[in-house]
């Protein structure tokens, strides 16, 4: 056994993984005690991208579908919650089920006709749908047109009004843990294996009796629901949402985080999102390089993808 294999098999042992996860979680939970608002907001931003990346990972990573419009899923959740709270004075927590239902309905409408086709077509349709959502939001009165929805009231949780960044840090940390658990549960289920089968070879999967269209639709809807819920929380954290937050760049960012980290591998996706959100911040205060950090970031991304096309922490084929 080579040293490299020995290290990786050691890293993949259950006990080490559990211990490392627990240590990491404890560290993240204690972090706000010794950092200020600014760093908490940066880490919050990383959490936010993790949630989006984990949602998209089900579509892109697990099922191999190419979705270029993930921003629309998260916009639907954000606007649903925003409108219900702002215009109809709903309680935030009551808007979550509605957000989920609307995510399901919209993704079924988009997914049903297009998922019967091969993935390239889906890329075009999702891209178009994302633009439709954004431009609709920019022109409707109920979505606040270009201004968007502003001054969305903050929710309360067991009597605590969620105002401070520290509150949101913990809310999003809990969400990340929930999303990771959901992701692992899906991956290790019969459904998850069917998705992997579709991703690796759709024809073979169909020949073996996997209802590919249906499973692809499930994956697509599930990804949309996770995106919608993220959007709902985003709306109340930011207290203002506008069409500019849901443009094509946002979809690209999330997809990039998934591809960068390693499609289909949960720790890889989380790492990719964290890298994506945190890297530009690290370089901020370095003179000269600080001003050109995005250039370096882009070059680094290209280097990573040429050197490790499977991502930073890819799934090992078993």
């Amino acid at each position: 056994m080579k040293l490299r294999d020995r290290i990786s098999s050691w890293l993949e042992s259950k006990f080490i993984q559990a211990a490392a996860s627990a240590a990491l979680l404890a560290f993240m939970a204690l972090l706000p005690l010794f950092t200020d608002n600014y760093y908490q907001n940066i880490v919050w931003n990383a959490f936010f991208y993790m949630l989006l990346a984990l949602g998209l990972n089900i579509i892109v990573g697990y099922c191999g579908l190419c979705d270029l419009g993930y921003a629309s899923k998260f916009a639907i959740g954000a606007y649903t919650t925003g409108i219900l709270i702002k215009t109809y004075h709903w309680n935030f927590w009551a808007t979550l089920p509605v957000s989920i239902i609307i995510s399901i309905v919209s993704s079924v409408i988009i997914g049903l006709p297009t998922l019967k086709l091969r993935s390239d077509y889906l890329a075009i349709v999702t891209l178009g749908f994302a633009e439709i959502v954004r431009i609709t939001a920019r022109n409707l009165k109920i979505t606040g047109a270009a201004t968007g929805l502003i001054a969305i009231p903050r929710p309360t949780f067991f009597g605590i009004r969620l105002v401070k960044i520290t509150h949101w840090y913990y809310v999003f940390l809990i969400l990340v843990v929930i999303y990771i658990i959901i992701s692992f549960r899906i991956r290790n289920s019969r459904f998850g294996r069917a998705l992997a089968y579709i991703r690796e070879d759709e024809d073979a999967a169909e020949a073996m009796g996997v209802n590919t269209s249906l499973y692809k639709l499930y994956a697509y809807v599930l990804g949309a629901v996770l995106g919608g819920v993220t959007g709902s929380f985003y709306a109340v954290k930011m207290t203002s949402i506008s069409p500019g937050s849901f443009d094509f760049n946002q979809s690209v960012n999330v997809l990039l985080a998934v591809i960068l980290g390693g499609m289909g591998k949960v720790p890889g996706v989380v790492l990719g999102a964290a890298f994506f959100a945190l890297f530009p911040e690290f370089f901020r205060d370095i003179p000269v390089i600080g001003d050109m950090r995005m250039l370096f970031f882009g070059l680094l991304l290209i280097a990573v993808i040429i050197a490790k096309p499977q991502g930073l922490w890819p799934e090992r084929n078993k």
Partner: protein
Amino acid sequence: MHEKLKKTLALLLAALAIASFAAGCGGTNSGGGGGSGGSGDEEEILIGVMVPTSGSEAYYGTDMYQSYMLAVEEINKAGGVLGRKLTLLQADDGCDSNIATSAAELLISKNVDFVVGGYCSGATVAAMQLYFDEDLLLLISAANSTGITQLGLDTCFMLNSPGSHAAVTLADLCKSVGSSKVALIHNGDEYPQNLSKLCEDELPKHGIEIATVQVVDKGASDVSSVVTAIRNAEADFVYWCGYHADGSNVIKQLRQGGYEGDIAVGDGSASVELITACGDAGEGVYVTSPPFVRFAEGGDRFVADFKAMHNLEPGAYATLAYDTIYVLKEAIEKAGTLDTGAVKDAVQNINYKGLSGTIKFTPDRELEISNFIIIQIVDGDFQLVTI
């Protein structure tokens, strides 16, 4: 997906990320007002500056920051405020709501005493609630969507004239050139849409008809359908509500399309870059402009000082930024304390005569007296128009 396709896609996306993110994310800069010297025994007054210094609006944000620096240096040289020096701490809002909240959290975590800045209305709105929750006074120098004051956060003041003032100025201009059918064009962004809506409400009150309202997509190169619509509506005056990059394109194509009536552009396009981008087509175009320093009383001295400090010409929002610091200084001195509540009351009751005009606030914390001026492109340069 095939392996090769995946790799190509990934590379493509990475390239896209460079392009898009060259405009993205923020930076911070801290600096006192140049050679502010030793701070003495007293603690300094820390002023947070939230302006875009990256992205498409970086030019304006940098211009504002440089203006703040000039004002702070002058004040510090003259002995500071309440005997204390002023220090600036800058955070980049990138003209983006996500980055703006990061900037706000950064300023809050550095315990700034006051915040000035705000160029893009959307980004400003996103950060306002955070300042309000921390009971921080925010003086907004440039952003002027009426959506800002509608939030009703009583620690935020808008030092620039809101779009409703631009609509009145436009009505005066139309009357003076004898136009009665106005076509409005905007690009669907927050401020242009807001301005267009305000003009739609205001102009009919002055007996001016709205011929048509057209929307141009941001970055669209061909706007011939809009030109045709405007000609069909027989408008004799066109008002562009958006920013100068798209505005110059619209102006050129209007002229190429044979439109011969008057053209005016809103304050988002008030930049010398409009002149170069339009070329010959720009001759005679009116601008409902924020107080351009060149036409301001005492502006020559300001321009000279600004050039001496930064080796650059001040831009369209330099006067407002400069006045912002002086308004803050006067309010702190009146209050005699740094307490937000007391300074807020002093700002509410201020009557300051600055470079940008008289700064006085309505109970809604908007500017009471319009600071809009009308300028016109004549022989490739701006000229003040008095009506």
